[in-house]
């Protein structure tokens, strides 16, 4: 077990976790302030990737495609919020779950109609090679960029939430909505804006991950579950919780995929060991969430006092 291996796997886990954070941040605020379960959050991630793919092709530049996809998806998100989601705030959770599940189906099919089942967002040539971090460790440049972007966005979000007036209103709304309303905060507009920001973050994650994975209809469903797990572990309504939860989940997942097969390989046949590793890693993540829910249901960093 070399240090290089451990370092590389840690970077992988960090990279995955930071992207999860982008999704979880928007989701936790939506949930925290408006108490609304939005299953269609993953669809915004998917839309971001598709829009980025089209814009990158149109402008000929990967960076332009990604940067333009953020506001485009944010606007789409806000339109969705104003038109459909607002009617759900007053409804019970079951209705929200079912309505947003229906939205997933609708958005998936509309995407398929507009783009087909998949699209491509190729990695920019300049970043497709490795960077020599240490002698013997050449890590993909693109993944380093993802880590950098993730850390940058996390910092920006923290500044936004902790140091600005808008951020203060958001924290107030997350911590006690009725009081905030009573104090005269225009919670409706605030929420639309928060939703837009969340959608933009999703788009950033979707666009950045697109060159690594495939851009395909349905890509939101799998990552959505993980995002929910993250916000439950981290604490609903808390961005700090989302960051801690996301990095935790990212590292557990990578460790599971990387090291468990080796451990199992000592006892079992390669096929069994290889299957068991990812399975146990996934189970561990859900187990972690179940344990947190059991002992500390409000999460690690609850927003509500």
């Amino acid at each position, binding site marked *: 077990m070399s240090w290089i291996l451990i370092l590389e796997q840690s970077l992988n886990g960090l990279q995955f976790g930071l992207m999860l954070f982008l999704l979880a941040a928007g989701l936790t605020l939506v949930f925290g302030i408006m108490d609304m379960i939005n299953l269609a959050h993953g669809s915004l991630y998917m839309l971001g990737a598709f829009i980025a793919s089209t814009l990158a092709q149109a402008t000929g530049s990967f960076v332009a495609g990604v940067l333009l996809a953020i506001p485009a998806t944010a606007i789409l998100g806000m339109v969705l919020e104003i038109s459909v989601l607002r009617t759900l705030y007053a409804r019970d959770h079951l209705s929200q779950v079912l*309505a947003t599940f229906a939205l997933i189906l609708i958005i998936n099919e509309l995407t398929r109609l507009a783009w087909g089942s998949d699209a491509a967002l190729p990695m920019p040539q300049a970043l497709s090679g490795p960077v020599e971090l240490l002698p013997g460790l050449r890590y993909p440049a693109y993944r380093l960029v993802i880590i950098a972007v993730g850390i940058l966005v996390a910092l920006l979000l923290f500044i936004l939430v902790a140091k600005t007036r808008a951020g203060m209103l958001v924290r107030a709304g997350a911590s006690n909505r009725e009081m905030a309303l009573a104090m005269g905060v225009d919670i409706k507009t605030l929420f639309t804006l928060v939703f837009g920001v969340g959608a933009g973050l999703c788009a950033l994650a979707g666009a950045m991950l697109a060159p690594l994975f495939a851009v395909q209809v349905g890509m939101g469903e799998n990552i959505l579950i993980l995002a929910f797990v993250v916000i439950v572990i981290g604490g609903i309504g808390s961005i700090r919780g989302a960051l801690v939860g996301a990095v935790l989940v990212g590292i557990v997942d990578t460790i599971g995929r990387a090291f468990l097969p080796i451990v199992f390989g000592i006892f079992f046949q390669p096929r069994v060991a290889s299957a068991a590793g990812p399975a*146990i890693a996934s189970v561990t993540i*859900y187990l972690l969430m179940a344990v947190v*829910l059991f002992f500390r*249901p409000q999460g690690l960093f609850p927003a509500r006092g």
Partner: protein
Amino acid sequence: MKRSIAVFIVLLGFPLVMSAIDNLFYVSFASRVIIYAIAATSLNLVLGYGGMISFGHAAFVGAGAYAASICIAEGVTSAWLGWPAAIGASALAAWLIGAVSLRTRGVYFIMITLAFAQMAFYLVNSMKAYGGDEGLSLPQRAELGLGLDLGNEVAFYYVVLFFLALSLYGLHRVMRSRFGRVVIAIRENEARAEAIGLPVRRYQLACFVVAGAVAGLAGALLASHGKYVNPNVLHWVQSGTLMIMVILGGVGQLWGGAIGAFVLLGLEHVISDYPLPWLAAVAPNYQQHANLGVGLVMLAVVLFAPHGVAGLLSRRRGA
């Protein structure tokens, strides 16, 4: 009650008509619809009558399906052993998951049931001995004896129809009993129920376990029907589909689950197999986008007709 009997008479006659025109495909399709009706009815008990939003119901269907499949794969082909095993497995799973999940409330309950369902999914996915994500193909359907060959589509149809009748009748009796009234009272106002001294959690858990057991039976029937089971049966999207069926049909209405299953699966089949020329002219390939219609209908139901189809029907009757 009279309407229910009338419906069953129609259902009884259906395969005979289909046999006469040599279209056994639809008998098999109808069996599948009925099995989903049983699964949706079991979810209706928990969701509609019990008010517990369980996003992990597919795990119980899956537990039953896999228990029954493993029995057949290992050579235990008798339904008298395999199906009770399936019911037992899913009831046990429901008891374990329910005992832990029911300690939470609201959205946390939803999330934790979801989490458990996903755990079950990943565990089953990793069982390479029973196919893993390739699934498990069975050499035959379960054997019931009694002179019935379940390999015969018509015979199988009558068996699943019998179980649907049993489930619906069971649900009908349970909800009229004291147990049922308590469950509804808990759904209406949990705090009040607790205040008057009812052991809320025990009733909820019992409800959960019964629903899980029936779901397990549906799973066993599903495995025999397709002679194939794979981990997708346990995926959370399947839970969502079952919830759609219940909502569509009508939460808390006796026939809600069955109507929902019939409407959803029927719609899917009709859209993909019977092209409407005028619609195809406007939107070519619309058949590949059947889910769009399903999603829109779902959204409309949630927003405008929260009591589902059954609710609309009973309102028109002036009930």
